[in-house]
């Protein structure tokens, strides 16, 4: 992986690098570098398999982290490419032309995080949710408990307890 990193660094502007395992590294790039980097990794370095495309909501920084995880099966290596984008009006270039299956990931990210991928096929079609009228539910500021309390009623006779308090008081009273 280190050789790969040096080769990439000579061609692209790479940001923060994380060596998670010998066969799994993460690297951060600016959004303008993403497409050429992905094409280079796919066509020149053997990272032909798009494993996942997903997002992490860093709400405290006002940013979304997009993670494009690529796999090189022959070399047994994975490289996660991180791109940080603004949370407000979040939008990103589509990569469905590189991997047609990316359109599904992008459609899900549009629905669940509200990140737009203009020109991605069917990106505005409902994917999992139907008639959803709240904020995108996988954003950190979407409160699942509040939503459940507002939209569903409790079954009569049901007792609820705080799991952490119950475990501490009832199950493990002698543990700190």
């Amino acid at each position, binding site marked *: 992986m280190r050789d790969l990193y040096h080769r990439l660094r000579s061609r692209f502007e790479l940001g923060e690098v994380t060596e998670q395992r010998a066969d799994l590294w993460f690297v951060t790039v600016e959004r303008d570098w993403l497409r050429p980097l992905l094409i280079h990794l796919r066509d020149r370095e053997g990272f032909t398999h798009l494993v*996942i495309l997903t997002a992490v909501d860093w709400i405290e920084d006002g940013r979304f982290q997009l993670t494009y995880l690529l796999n090189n099966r022959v070399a047994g290596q994975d490289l996660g490419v991180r791109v940080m984008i603004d949370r407000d009006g979040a939008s990103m270039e589509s990569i469905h032309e590189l*991997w047609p299956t990316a359109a599904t990931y992008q459609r899900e990210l549009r629905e669940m995080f509200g990140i737009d991928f203009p020109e991605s096929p069917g990106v505005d079609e409902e994917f999992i949710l139907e008639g959803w009228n709240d904020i995108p539910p996988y954003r950190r500021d979407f409160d699942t408990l509040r939503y459940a309390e507002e939209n569903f009623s409790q079954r009569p006779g049901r007792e609820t307890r705080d*799991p*952490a308090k119950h475990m501490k008081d009832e199950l493990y009273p002698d543990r700190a």
Partner: protein
Amino acid sequence: MLYPDRSQYPARKADGSLDIDLTSGKYLKIWQGPNHPGITGNMSVELTVCGDEVVEGKTHVGYLHRGFEKLMERRTFIQCFPIVCRICVPEPDFNEYCYAAAVEELAGIKAPERADWIRALILEMGRINSYMMYLGGQAGALGQGVIGQWTTYVRDLMLDRFEELTGARIYHMFILPGGVRDGLPDGFEGRMEETLREIESTLRDVEKVMFHNAVFKKRTVGLGVIEPDWIDRYGVTGPNARACAVAKDVRKDQPYLVYDQLDFQPVLGRDSDVFTRADVRRRDILLSVDLIRQMLAKMPRSGPLMAEIPNVLHWKIPRGETYVRGECSRGEYGYYLVTDGSGYPRRVNVRGPSYTHAMALLERMIVNLNISDVAALLVSLHTYPPEIER
């Protein structure tokens, strides 16, 4: 010309979509699912047909969305365990393993060697069960109901082994961060050997009745071919790729647990059609039988089963991210876990093989198919909807 000339219509619009005018009388919309014997679980395929040929198919999911990934963000690391196994009912153990391994990696915990052997054993047992459900479904999609009865019987025998090992039949919650709950019970090896022999015997019958059946062969040979250049473009993994002679198997490519200590080669096919995919899975069951025998012969019988882990009530994991994968019966299963130093996962993303197989790949393959073959194609991709809408 007896059949519609697909090069002529439906024509494509400027944006690439098909120009389908339902009022023309040439086309009809049919929903296969969510309640339909020819659908794999809680999903549906919106078919647009011309005569009895499919001109467009769209996968619809969302019928059992419970927001697993989001729910986990509100739960401590240990509280996530009753959730993860429910992401895949027929083969839940991969969720437990991948999640546990991801948590261990970010927390700097190493599971004991004996636990790794038992984890691999459980994963192979689950693989056999999942394939047994598949074989019954694949035969059933083409009218052979008896195969499902036979495979359900041997699956039940394996569930008995699960029950005596883990205490549960379907959701085991036996693999935890740090190791496994317990060792093998007394006499387990003997009873497992009896089960494996029953599986081999049943598979011999299945081969004769299903794979040598003229109707099954006639309907599945040449149906639903996955082209080699689709493998990477559509993220095809597991038996769907191996039936195309692509030796894609995480157990071999990036060995985890104890697979580097086992002697095996990935099962490959050549023709990449429905028949070949079924045959690859049948032979994959025999491979799992062999691997279980190897594991029972080689695994240590003493030693710790759990590593020391922090108090789970106050367990905080430093900021980090990782991806852990395994080879399940349908292909690559993986967990992308992000932590932020708190006592809760920051983000969990589950990569189920069905996510790519049942969406982009299916929609690509279903075009020009006869309606009566849609169920056979769907089952042959071996998809489980909960993986799509975690």
